[in-house]
């Protein structure tokens, strides 16, 4: 099947408006006869549920958590971008569009990104009307902050809990529709397959996670908003339950999976402390505004620190290697996420990691404290302030800016970051790749849509800070509700879809068989054993930096783990009850397939772009020596994979990317 992105004709700034003017609409009376299933209730799924229900469709919403409010969108800290230009600093729809495409290293679809930038302003209006308590200035107007990779202040925020507040906004909009009976909410339910009737998505098979019951649910369209697949690495900043099952199931039933290798590894996370570690915690990117990143220059100091013979504060300035400032004098500690992460890995691989695991670098606030302290002393007219006084004054400023983050760090690591530098290390954070969708957000299965982090469309090979929340809400509130109507307009005479159809029967049997297999397998190793093993291969060979040999090994190793998993996995308990091990088994089984496709995609893409760094594709000389080298001639396309059984047999379909409104340039931060 040839990929048709269905991008409307015409100039980029008119595409969305023209499109909306010409699509088919469903009359309100008919909407009452149409059912839509939404899987996932984060920012994308939750907002889609609310709007679809408001429009009059009957929505069935599914979440594995006990409430829509707990979806992992809630953990987003920093903020949400919108081209409001409230600060009058020259922001515009075009500039947001440009920054996002450039930030994504020119691997996203232009028309989708432009539309995203276009509706971004509506999101803020909408959220304020819903009672989202965004930060305000003393004049009572909305405040903005600035984020990495851009030159304007366009990020709206609610303390360090922007994701939480936006999700609660979407959740409140859902609540209103649940109360009206327009949304039927299925908490603690997990989608285990999609049902396709006559080539169209017509329902899902879901498991009630409390009773273990397998349920059939029918609808005229199915929307997947189940988030990213970062947990393929086992350790990530994702929630423990975040999984790729819904996305992977539709992939296996015909939806192409695009650019799986595009993964964002966030540079400022709290390092792993031991093998028992279950997840990683992100520290906001904003810390890099004032923190300086370094490792010791000399190996003796590294060893002395690891053995506890020396403290980082014992090292003088010239015994420290501020490697980001050294390598990137122009941007210094504020280089984009992918660059900062790779640089940390480079130093740690060279043996300079500062903790027991050898995977940590320092993020030091001492100079910021001194700088702020000196400034405060001047402001307060203190002459000849002592060092202690300067420190005291400076600490107050740092505390006001980052107090909650410092406190979080201290709770986890049990070290006071005002006295000793923080330790940080990169961690898997966001997956730009995902289910391939066209301009309508429809997958290659008719009637099956994919929104939010679960799809691939807007962030290219790297996502800019504060853009994930924007995309989730844009898809759910403002894009999908229009585009889905165009498809459902043909369904007004279809009537209720019966769940007694043989297709439902077959899909249910497939699901039940698999569950029975797990319960009866009586292997010897726990699900986590395999998940951790997969995660290690992914991190070591398909992590921040990748090469051909490693990727080939990874594919073989993942396949071997998968085979061992199916032979030897052990799932205790029964299927007719709440059984978290059984839930995990199903998710890990899917990760074990996705992981291999991920490596295959990374192997195919023999260029470096955004979060995907191929060691073979680096600048060989000149000022950019060692930096990522993009290959627009050969790789300016979306890699959409078609499922053919074994992941290794997946077939590649290319959607060529055309850039008519932006000139392709190399990103330079030197």
């Amino acid at each position, binding site marked *: 099947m040839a990929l048709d992105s269905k991008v409307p004709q015409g100039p980029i700034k008119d595409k969305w408006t023209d499109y909306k003017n010409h699509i088919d609409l469903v009359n309100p009376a008919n909407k009452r006869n149409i059912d839509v299933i939404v899987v996932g209730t984060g920012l994308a799924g939750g*907002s889609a549920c*609310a*709007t679809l229900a*408001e429009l009059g469709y009957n929505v069935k919403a599914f979440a594995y*958590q*006990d*409430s829509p*409010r*707990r979806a*992992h969108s*809630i*953990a987003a800290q920093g903020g949400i971008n919108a081209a409001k230009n409230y600060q009058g600093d020259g922001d515009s729809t075009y500039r947001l569009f440009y920054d996002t495409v450039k930030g994504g290293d020119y691997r996203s679809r232009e028309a989708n990104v432009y539309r995203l930038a276009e*509706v971004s302003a*509506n*999101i803020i*209006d*909408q*959220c*304020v*009307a*819903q*009672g989202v*308590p*965004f*930060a*305000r200035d003393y004049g*009572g*107007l909305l405040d903005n902050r600035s984020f990495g990779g851009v030159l304007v202040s366009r990020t709206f925020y609610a303390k360090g*809990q922007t994701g*939480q*507040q936006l999700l609660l906004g979407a959740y*409140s*909009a859902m*609540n*209103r529709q*649940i109360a009206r009976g327009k949304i039927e909410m299925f*908490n603690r339910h997990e989608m285990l397959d999609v049902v396709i009737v006559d080539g169209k998505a017509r329902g899902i098979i879901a498991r009630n996670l*409390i009773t273990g019951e397998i349920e059939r649910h029918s609808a005229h369209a199915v929307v997947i908003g189940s988030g990213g697949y970062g947990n393929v690495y086992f350790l990530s900043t994702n*929630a423990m*339950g975040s999984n790729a099952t819904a996305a992977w199931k539709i992939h296996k039933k015909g939806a192409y999976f695009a650019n799986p290798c595009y993964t964002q590894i966030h540079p400022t996370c709290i390092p792993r402390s*031991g093998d*028992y*570690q*279950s*997840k990683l915690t*992100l520290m906001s990117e904003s810390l890099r505004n004032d923190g300086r990143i370094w490792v010791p220059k000399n190996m003796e100091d590294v060893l002395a620190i690891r053995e506890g013979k020396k403290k980082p504060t014992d090292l003088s300035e010239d015994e420290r290697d501020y490697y980001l400032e050294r390598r990137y004098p122009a941007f210094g500690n504020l280089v984009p996420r992918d660059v900062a992460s790779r640089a940390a890995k480079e130093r740690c691989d060279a043996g300079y990691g500062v903790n027991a695991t050898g995977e940590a670098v320092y993020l030091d606030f001492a100079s910021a404290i001194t700088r702020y302290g000196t400034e405060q002393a001047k402001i307060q007219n203190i002459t000849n302030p002592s060092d202690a006084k300067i420190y005291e004054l400076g600490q107050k400023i740092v505390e006001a800016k980052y107090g909650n983050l410092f406190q*979080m760090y201290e*709770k*986890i690591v049990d070290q006071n970051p005002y006295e000793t530098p923080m330790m940080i290390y990169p961690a898997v954070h966001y997956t730009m790749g995902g289910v391939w969708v066209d301009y309508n957000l429809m997958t290659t299965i008719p009637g099956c849509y994919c929104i939010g982090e679960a799809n691939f469309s807007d962030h290219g090979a790297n996502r800019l800070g504060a853009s994930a929340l924007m995309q989730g809400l844009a898809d759910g*509130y*403002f894009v999908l509700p229009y585009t889905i109507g165009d498809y459902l307009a043909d369904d007004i005479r279809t009537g209720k879809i019966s769940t007694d159809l043989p297709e439902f029967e077959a899909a249910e049997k497939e699901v039940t068989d698999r569950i029975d297999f797990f319960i009866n397998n009586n292997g010897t190793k*726990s699900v*986590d054993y395999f998940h951790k093993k997969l995660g290690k291969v992914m991190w070591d060979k398909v992590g921040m930096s990748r090469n051909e040999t490693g990727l080939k090994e990874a594919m073989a190793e993942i396949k071997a783990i998968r085979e061992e998993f199916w032979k030897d996995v*052990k799932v*205790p*308990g029964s299927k007719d*009850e*709440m059984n*978290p*091990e059984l839930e995990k088994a199903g998710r890990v089984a899917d990760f074990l397939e996705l992981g291999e496709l991920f490596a295959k995609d990374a192997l195919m893409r023999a260029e470096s772009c955004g979060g995907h760094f191929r060691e073979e594709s680096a600048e060989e000389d000149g000022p950019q020596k060692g930096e990522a080298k993009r290959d627009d001639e050969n790789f300016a396309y979306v890699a959409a994979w078609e499922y053919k059984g074994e992941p290794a047999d997946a077939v590649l379909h290319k959607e060529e990317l055309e850039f008519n409104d932006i000139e392709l340039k190399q990103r330079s931060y030197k």
Partner: protein
Amino acid sequence: MNLTLKIWRQKDTSSKGQMVDYKVTEISEHMSFLEMMDVLNEQLVNSGEEPVAFDHDCREGICGMCSMYINGEAHGPDRGITTCQLHMRMFNDGDTITIEPFRAAAFPVIKDLVVDRTSFDRIQHAGGYISVNTSGNTQDANAIPISKHAADEAMDAATCIGCGACVATCKNSSAMLFVGAKVSQYALLPQGQVEAADRVQNMVAQMDLEGFGNCTNTGACEVECPKGISLDNIARMNRELMKASI
């Protein structure tokens, strides 16, 4: 460190449960409490026993999913944290730790340490929203200035993660801190004023219907709240309800 765990085991809502003793060894003080539970579960799976079911998800203190009552306190002995942020360094080698589910008639146990908190959702359905369509065609976000003070106070109320620690810790199993926080968030913002009276009446009515107890102002909820939601929010709700009823 080596620990003895006394954990509530219950097969499902209708079964009778009991406390069961377990031993875990070589627990690192840097582990989070839930990672210690992972160690126990791995141990149980490997020995062919059923692992302990417990709710957890984000493991960074924001989703509100984790819900254990540890040594007689919701989310355990530390302050301003959820169970996933509780670290083993709060305990000593040789300790016996009692782990129970959140208890309240309105939070029935589903299994082991997992409880059903959908009563919170139903309270929200009753009025935890502003009736505005998600059309995006509302007025400009800056059309109504909101004082920084009111916005900040609304934000403080809105940080509630809906974990239910307030109910679990309250000797009366009252949900007033949770409901008060939600009522307050909207009462403090001009957008929420239009339906403020109906909102508070409907939400309080639903709260009562769910079988939550009555607040006697012990203040335990505020102390145990992972997000430090203030008791002032309960006072504000009381005020709002009086205003709405008179």
